[in-house]
């Protein structure tokens, strides 16, 4: 497999690894409670953001299962950092991956996440040879749910009160997509034996 070529360009965005200088931009959205649910370590306070950024800066390739690739969503033109997208390679033998994302609410509703996630789905299936991608959504996050439907993801799970999150009963949706469901006309791939990631 050829090595990963970064940055990735979409119509309005450049997806690139995080840099030291991104701290102020990350602070704008990373401490929001809606973001906490989808980050590896909580950043409820501004002091935590630098450590979170350090983790994201280190997530630049997928060599082994368990690793995550995280890319900053940077607007073309003015280079404004609007959020991030990540792909976790969760399981090697079954080719499983998980997408996560977060956006500065001031920049949502402009189609940026659709572009960034589309690029990440392409990357997961075409470059990393993932077999199935999943995304978790808060059951109350109507924006995310609509976004998943727009991307053509299937609702696979709707858990009610299966866990506590920040002291309250949680509701969680899982959306998923198989490689053959993504732009199915563009490729023909045999199942179940296939080339694995890396």
């Amino acid at each position, binding site marked *: 497999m050829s090595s990963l070529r970064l940055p990735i360009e979409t119509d309005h965005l450049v997806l690139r690894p995080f840099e030291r200088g991104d701290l102020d931009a990350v602070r704008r959205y990373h401490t929001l409670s809606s973001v906490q649910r989808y980050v590896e370590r909580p950043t409820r306070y501004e002091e935590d953001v630098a450590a979170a950024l350090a983790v994201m800066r280190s997530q630049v390739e997928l060599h082994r299962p368990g690793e995550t690739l995280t890319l900053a969503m940077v607007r073309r033109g003015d280079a404004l950092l609007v959020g991030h997208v990540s792909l976790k390679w969760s*399981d090697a*033998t*079954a080719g*499983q991956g998980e997408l996560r994302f977060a956006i500065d609410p001031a920049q949502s509703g402009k189609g940026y996440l659709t572009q960034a996630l589309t690029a990440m789905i392409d990357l997961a299936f075409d470059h990393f040879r993932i*077999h*199935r991608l*999943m995304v978790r959504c808060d059951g109350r996050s109507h924006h995310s749910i609509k976004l998943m439907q727009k991307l053509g993801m*299937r609702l*696979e*799970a*709707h*858990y*009610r*009160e*299966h*866990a*506590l999150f920040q002291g309250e009963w949680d509701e969680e949706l*899982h959306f*998923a997509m*198989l490689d053959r469901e993504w732009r199915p006309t563009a490729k023909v791939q045999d*199942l*179940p034996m296939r080339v694995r990631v890396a």
Partner: protein
Amino acid sequence: MALHPDFPLQTERLRLRPFTRGDVDGVFAYRGREDVARYLFDPPLSRDECALAIQQRATQTGFFEEGDRIVLAVETAHDGKLVGEVSLIWRSVEARQGELGWIFHPDHHGRGYATEATNALLDLGFGPADMHRIFARCDARNEPSWRLMERLGMRREAHFREHGLFKGLWDEEFYYAILRDEWLSLRHV
């Protein structure tokens, strides 16, 4: 909540009790079968493996900490015949979650024994064990199992496709769940 229930649990036609050493042949009669093991995690067990499993189960009779399981032999009340087993696992202490499981001898399918025994475990889970939500899962092709979940009043919460490999093939799995309030209204409590 730590829990050490008094056994047996009695239902209309059944007794649910801890396993004993005398159950090896009874367990081997169903756990040794290919058809019974088809959708189970374990392959068919040898008689020795059944003996070992029973040794382990003799201690699985209460909840002390997260991950503990109560595994009970199910026998008919009128003649004490072992017809299968049911289990309840304490999956989360904080969120009060439990998971149900069941395996019955094919000679005793189709009589509502599984429904009757599992309902007793739901009552134990939501009653003395004070659980908030109880779930169960099965292979999507295991229709007797998910029909049992529907008889119990559980809702299908998840339908996973090809999220893993099971016995060398792509797995397809259902999750069903029931909340404490739903159980209360079923029992008209």
